[in-house]
C-alpha cells in the first residue's frame, strides 16, 4: 500500500468511525426515544388498565344498582332532587307559559265541574268556621269576661268574625245590671240603617249595620239546610239580640246580666215600635226619616229595663 493510499485508508477509517458513531448516535437516540415512548406507552397502558378496572367496578356497581331499586334510588334521587330544586327556582321561566295556558284551558273547559267539586268543600269549611266562631263567643260570654262598651268592642267583634283571630284584650268585670247600649233598626237585605240609638257614641253605625246584615246573609246561606237565622250573637259581656220584622230587622246590644225574659221583652217593645214608627212602604231612606226613627228609639230605650 502506498502512503497515499494508507492515508486514504486512515481517513476512510476515520470517516467511517465518525460516520458510524454518528449513525450509532442517531440509532441510540432513536432507540432511546423509542424506548422512552415505549415506557410512556406502558405507563399509559397501565393507567388505562387501571381506569378500565375502575370502570369495570363502576359498571358492575351500576348493573348491580340497576337491578336493585333501593340502591338505584339512593343514587338517582339526589340528582333528581337537584334537578327539581333547579326547576323550582326556574320553573316559571321554563314552563310558566305552558302551565298557565294548560290550566286556563282546563279551567275554562271544566269550569262547572270545578265549581261543583269545590263549592261543597268550601261550604263545609265556611260552616265549620262560623260554628267555631260562635262557640268562641259563647265561651267568652260564659266566662263573664267584660269590657266597657266602646268602639273598640265593635272593632273586636268584627275583627274576630272577619279574620278568625281572637281578640287579645280582655278585662274581667263583675256582671252589671242589664242595660240597652245600642239599638239598630236596619232595612232587610239592603242593610241600610233606618234608625239608631246609642248610649255612648260608637263606631260608624252605617258600617256596623251593613256588616251585621252581611253576617246574617252569610250565616243563613251557610246553614241553608239547617236551623236558619241567628238570634243572638254573644261577645264578652255584651249580647246582640236580633229581631226580624217584615221589611226590617233590629239589632239590640245589651250589656250586663240578661235573663231568659230579655229576648221576649225586647221583641214586644220593638214590635210596638216598628208598627208605630217605621213606614210600611220604605222607598228611600233619608236623613229626616233616620232622625225621626232615631229620636223615637231614644225615647223608648233610654230607660228601658231589659230584665
Amino acid at each position, binding site marked *: 500500500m502506498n502512503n497515499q493510499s494508507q492515508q486514504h485508508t486512515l481517513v476512510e477509517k476515520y470517516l467511517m468511525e465518525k460516520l458510524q458513531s454518528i449513525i450509532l448516535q442517531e440509532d441510540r437516540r432513536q432507540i432511546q426515544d423509542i424506548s422512552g415512548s415505549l415506557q410512556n406507552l406502558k405507563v399509559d397502558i397501565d393507567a388505562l388498565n387501571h381506569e378500565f378496572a375502575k370502570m369495570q367496578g363502576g359498571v358492575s356497581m351500576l348493573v348491580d344498582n340497576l337491578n336493585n331499586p333501593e340502591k338505584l334510588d339512593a343514587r338517582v334521587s339526589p340528582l333528581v332532587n337537584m334537578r327539581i330544586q333547579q326547576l323550582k327556582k326556574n320553573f316559571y321561566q321554563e314552563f310558566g307559559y305552558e302551565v298557565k295556558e294548560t290550566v286556563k284551558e282546563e279551567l275554562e273547559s271544566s269550569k262547572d265541574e270545578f265549581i261543583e267539586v269545590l263549592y261543597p268543600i268550601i261550604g263545609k269549611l265556611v260552616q265549620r*268556621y262560623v260554628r267555631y266562631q260562635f262557640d268562641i263567643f259563647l265561651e267568652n260570654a260564659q266566662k263573664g269576661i267584660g269590657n266597657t262598651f266602646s268602639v273598640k268592642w265593635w272593632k273586636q267583634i268584627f275583627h274576630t268574625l272577619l279574620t278568625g283571630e281572637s281578640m287579645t284584650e280582655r278585662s274581667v268585670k263583675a256582671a252589671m245590671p242589664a242595660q240597652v247600649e245600642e239599638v239598630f233598626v236596619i232595612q232587610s237585605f239592603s242593610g*241600610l240603617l233606618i234608625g239608631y240609638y246609642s248610649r255612648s257614641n260608637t263606631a260608624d253605625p*252605617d*258600617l256596623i249595620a251593613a*256588616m251585621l246584615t252581611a*253576617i246574617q*246573609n252569610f250565616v*243563613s*246561606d251557610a246553614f241553608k239546610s239547617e236551623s236558619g237565622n241567628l238570634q243572638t250573637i254573644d261577645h264578652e259581656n255584651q249580647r246582640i239580640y236580633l229581631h226580624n220584622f217584615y221589611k226590617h230587622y233590629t239589632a239590640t246590644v245589651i250589656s250586663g246580666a240578661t235573663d231568659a225574659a230579655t229576648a221576649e221583652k225586647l221583641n214586644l217593645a220593638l214590635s210596638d215600635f216598628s208598627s208605630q214608627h217605621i213606614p210600611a212602604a220604605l222607598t228611600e231612606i*233619608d236623613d229626616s226619616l233616620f232622625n225621626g226613627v232615631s229620636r223615637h228609639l231614644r225615647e223608648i230605650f233610654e230607660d228601658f229595663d231589659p230584665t
Partner: protein
Amino acid sequence: MRTITKKVILTGSFAVGKTSLISRFVYQKFSATYKTTLGVRIDRKTVELPEITINMLIWDIGGEQTQLRVPETYYLGSSGVIYVYDISRPSSFSQIHDDLAYLKSKLHDIPLVIVGNKTDLLDPVTLEEAKQLVPVNTHFFTSAKDGTNVESLFIYLAKQLVNDPSGI
C-alpha cells in the same frame, strides 16, 4: 241639605281591582291587602252633589274565582252596581256577557256602571286596541293606581242613584 243612603254593589272577576278602586275612592290611596272570610268588604263614602248628599254603602263582593257564588242575598236591596274588569287582561272580560246577565237577573232595573280598570298597565296604542276587544260598552276606563277616572266614576254613579226612579 238632604242626605239619602244607598247600597251599591261592586263586582267583577278576581283581581280586576275592585278593592283597589274603593281604597282609592274612600281612602285616597292605593293598597289592596284586605280580605274577609265573609266574601264581602263594606266601605262607606259620602258624595256631595250640588242638591243632595249621597251616603253610599259600597259592598265589594267577590274577589274569588267563584264570585257569583257569594250568598245571593248580598245583591239584594242595592240601588246601583259597578261591574269591573281588567282591561290589561282579556280573560277578565271573556265572561262579561254571562256575568252581566246574572247580575241583571238579580238586580232589576238599577243603574249599572261598567268599568275597565288598570289602564296604567297599557301604553296608549295597546289601550286603544284592547278597548276594541271588549264586547260591551264601557262607561269608564280607570286606574286605581294613578287615580284616573276613579272620582268621576263614583260621582257619575251618585248622580244615577239620585235619578233612580225605582226607589230601593
